[in-house]
């Protein structure tokens, strides 16, 4: 017997990274701006997205959404009420979306052509850990944090917040009764991801949504920029 060391240097998520790179290319070619929304369960991703889809449609934008869920199609039904095409991805227990699931659900999506879309939103499975490792080919990764979750979430889940391109604080309408410390939350997000754009929103009152929509419009105009999000 002889021992031998075989150098590999192979990324464990290489397959996902390659698929995601392929998706990113398709999205760029189609001219669609793709956003991946990540947060804990219950932060308000669906509520925020319902509002966003409605407003974008009212402004004449062509939008669609993919939504990941462990078992139900509740979120897909809520989002579909906006009138936008929505497709559910049931992960059956898997705690994150991956590029292969996105690939699969873009196939045979009736009435949806990537090239005919302005925006495609992907609501990830509610989880602050695993989705951060799986690139979906998105241009913008949005990390959401609600006022009820604790201002230290960014410090507890630095991987996710550090990989985000924009941050959204949700449920601002109940910030006061929750004793939400706004300065501390902003500081913590900035410690983990210096300079990130932060939107303070409410899906109940619509607060902060105009800023968010302006950001989307700007990102849409700049979508052909070659630079990938970090």
């Amino acid at each position: 017997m002889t021992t031998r060391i075989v150098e590999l240097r192979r990324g464990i998520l290489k397959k996902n990274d390659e698929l995601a790179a392929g998706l990113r290319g398709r999205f760029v070619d189609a001219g669609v701006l793709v956003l991946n929304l990540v947060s804990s369960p219950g932060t308000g991703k669906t509520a925020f997205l319902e509002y966003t889809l409605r407003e974008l449609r009212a402004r004449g934008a062509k939008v669609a959404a993919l939504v990941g869920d462990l078992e139900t199609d509740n979120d897909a039904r809520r989002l579909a009420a906006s009138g936008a095409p929505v497709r559910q991805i049931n992960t059956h227990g898997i705690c994150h979306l991956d590029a292969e699931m996105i690939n699969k659900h873009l196939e045979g999506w009736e009435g949806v052509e990537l090239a005919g879309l302005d925006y495609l939103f992907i609501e990830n499975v509610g989880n602050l850990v695993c989705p951060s490792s799986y690139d979906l080919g998105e241009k913008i990764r949005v990390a959401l944090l609600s006022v009820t979750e604790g201002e230290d979430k960014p410090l507890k889940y630095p991987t996710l917040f550090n990989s985000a391109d924009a941050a959204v604080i949700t449920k601002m309408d109940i910030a006061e009764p929750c004793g939400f410390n706004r300065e501390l939350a902003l500081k913590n997000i900035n410690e983990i991801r210096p300079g990130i754009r932060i939107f303070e929103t409410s899906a109940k009152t619509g607060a902060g949504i105009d800023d968010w929509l302006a950001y989307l419009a700007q990102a849409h105009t700049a979508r052909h920029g070659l630079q990938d999000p970090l």
Partner: protein
Amino acid sequence: MHELSVVASIVESVTELAAAYPGARVLEVRLRVGALASVIEDSLQFCWGITTEGTPLQGSKLTVQTLPVVMHCTACAQDVELQGVQSFRCPRCGEPCSDLRQGRELEIDSIEIDEVEEAI
């Protein structure tokens, strides 16, 4: 949280590679894991035994090299290593840094195998 699927894909990759060395036993698998990879070594080790059972990796050891986060500080015009992942500021000058150079790695570095010598 997805350590089990991470371990499963390591086993898959290594099994594939080990097929090129018939009869060889895998002794050790060495990983490089960035501080921001969000996998926990204890959980990897915990899954290792069960997942490798009945594969060419059975009985092998898993070693994990943790890589610190390295950022490029524009103010200092150099790469700097962070002490932790609680603050993305340059440890030299205190300026915030957003240009990540290392820390998200999740890769198999190398494997050590016990080769059967060719019969003469």
